[in-house]
């Protein structure tokens, strides 16, 4: 449905997007993940035709964004990071304007009423946008993207600034959209992407660092286990001893607890229980363990891991 090929965007000397390629299949919800400034918005702006790429192509449902911008744009509904709302208009007037602007041919009042119902803005329909809360504005922005029922919906950080309840509503809404549309969703909140997306593309410093299904990412994350330890003793003896335990892939010191123990985190593979080994090693050097706890690696950690460049090569081939 959407094909991005070798996309490069340069701002002067700065390389904002570096050779990014991915495809979004019809009916798929693709999560576009990356830290702030990774190039997510730039990529989305290029897909929607707001910016031009330095090189590379974007094809939306067979329309190349440079050769046939009108055709491509008419197939996309876009909610930018800042919803493009005219503050002085009422919601109704604004949606009518977008309807006219997009030259939609669906029956006007019915279609607008339907969009308003889906995005739950019916009760603010006649209010001036300026006076709406952030959550409602975001929903009006989403309504604007849905007008004309475009096959592709692109949402740039749709839940930024929403309260937890609204975030859940927004998620359900997006999940519902995925049934009829192809959705690309960007975010730097992993749990959000994990909750709604079928596939995740991770981008960092303008480069694609992972492209795999949500399940795959979750399972690779679950494959690594962590042990959180509070140990009494000196770092100089504890660290080498921890590292020498069989099965430990990584050990580091986090901090010192208020009661004077050192806090350490050890990573190991799920099929290799190291707890006994750690206990014995610490007993041998006479450093008592006062606390030992299994800590699961959060998706946030996994994300940092991926974007910090670890395991990039092995992950890249994860999916075609």
């Amino acid at each position, binding site marked *: 449905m959407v094909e991005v090929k070798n996309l490069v965007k340069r*701002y002067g000397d700065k390389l904002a997007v570096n050779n990014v390629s991915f495809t979004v299949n019809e009916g798929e919800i693709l999560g576009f993940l990356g830290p702030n400034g990774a190039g997510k918005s730039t990529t989305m*702006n290029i897909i*929607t*035709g*707001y*910016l*031009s790429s330095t090189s590379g192509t974007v094809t939306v449902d067979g329309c190349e964004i440079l050769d046939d*911008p*009108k*055709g491509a*744009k*008419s197939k*996309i509904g*876009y909610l*930018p990071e*800042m919803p*493009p*709302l*005219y*503050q*002085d*208009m009422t919601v109704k*007037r604004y949606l009518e*304007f*977008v309807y*006219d*602007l*997009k*030259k939609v041919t669906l029956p006007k009042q019915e279609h607008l009423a339907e969009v308003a119902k889906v995005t739950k803005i019916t009760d603010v329909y006649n209010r001036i946008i300026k006076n709406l809360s952030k959550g409602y504005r975001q929903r009006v922005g989403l309504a*604007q993207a849905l007008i004309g029922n475009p096959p592709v919906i692109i949402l740039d950080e749709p839940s930024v600034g929403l309260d937890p309840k609204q975030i859940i509503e927004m998620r359900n809404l997006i999940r519902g959209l995925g049934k009829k549309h192809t959705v690309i969703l960007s975010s730097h909140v992993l749990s959000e992407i994990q909750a709604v997306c079928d596939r995740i593309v991770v981008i960092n410093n303008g480069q694609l660092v992972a492209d795999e299904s949500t399940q795959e990412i979750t399972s690779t994350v679950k494959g690594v286990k962590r042990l959180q330890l509070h140990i009494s003793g000196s770092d100089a003896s504890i660290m080498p001893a921890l590292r020498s335990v069989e099965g430990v892939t990584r050990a580091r010191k986090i901090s010192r607890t208020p009661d004077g123990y050192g806090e350490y985190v050890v990573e190991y593979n799920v099929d290799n229980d190291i707890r006994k080994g750690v206990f014995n090693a610490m007993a041998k050097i006479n450093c008592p363990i006062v606390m030992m706890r299994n800590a699961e690696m959060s998706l946030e950690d996994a994300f940092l891991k991926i974007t910090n460049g670890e395991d990039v090569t092995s992950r890249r081939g994860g999916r075609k």
Partner: protein
Amino acid sequence: MSAIYKRELNAYFTSPIAYVVYAVAALFGGMFFMGTVLTPDTTDMTYVFLNMTSVVIILIPILTMRLFSEEKNKKTEQGLLTAPVNLFQIVMGKYLAAVTVYAIMLVLFVIYGIIISFFAAPSWITIISNIIGLLLFGMALISIGTFVSSLTESQIVAAIISIGVGLLISYMDSLASSVNVDFIKTILSAISFTTPYQNFAVGIIKLSDVVFFLSVPVLFNFLTVRVLERRRWN
């Protein structure tokens, strides 16, 4: 294009901008009408129009300053530029909305003509040719103002530059006469708005003057499209 035109026109009338512009135009128009027509007891409105040009130079930038700079500043342009419309339609929609607001303002002078007709027969030909002249003059300035607005994010900057350009144009003749180099002198007087405008003022509508004034919007609207185009590539 009609969607953008309608929205812009609505924006002028739902905000105070159009009314403020009309009020100021009526204030100065009334002053000039009183001072150069009613008091000296004449039907000749030429001076009302000539004086009006300098008021228009200040008022038009107020109409045009927000056209593109506000969109850029409030990030609403993203909605326009990702919609299936081309840049030319966006520029023309906005331009024509400003021209419409301005053209409605010129109805004022028809009212003055009607007031004169209570006392004596007004020279409608001169009034109409003056109105057409002022309209074309305004259309040229609006296109320049629109262009300037597309260059900046700040409405204030857009207004100040547009007023500056308008004043510069109105001083072009005196500037030309103070230059010694012949070919610069020719260029300066060729782009002066004053000379073609003078024919309209005395009731002569010449095709060449009409073409002169219309060529300005053609040029500057084209340049505005280019500016928007270029922004995509930056």
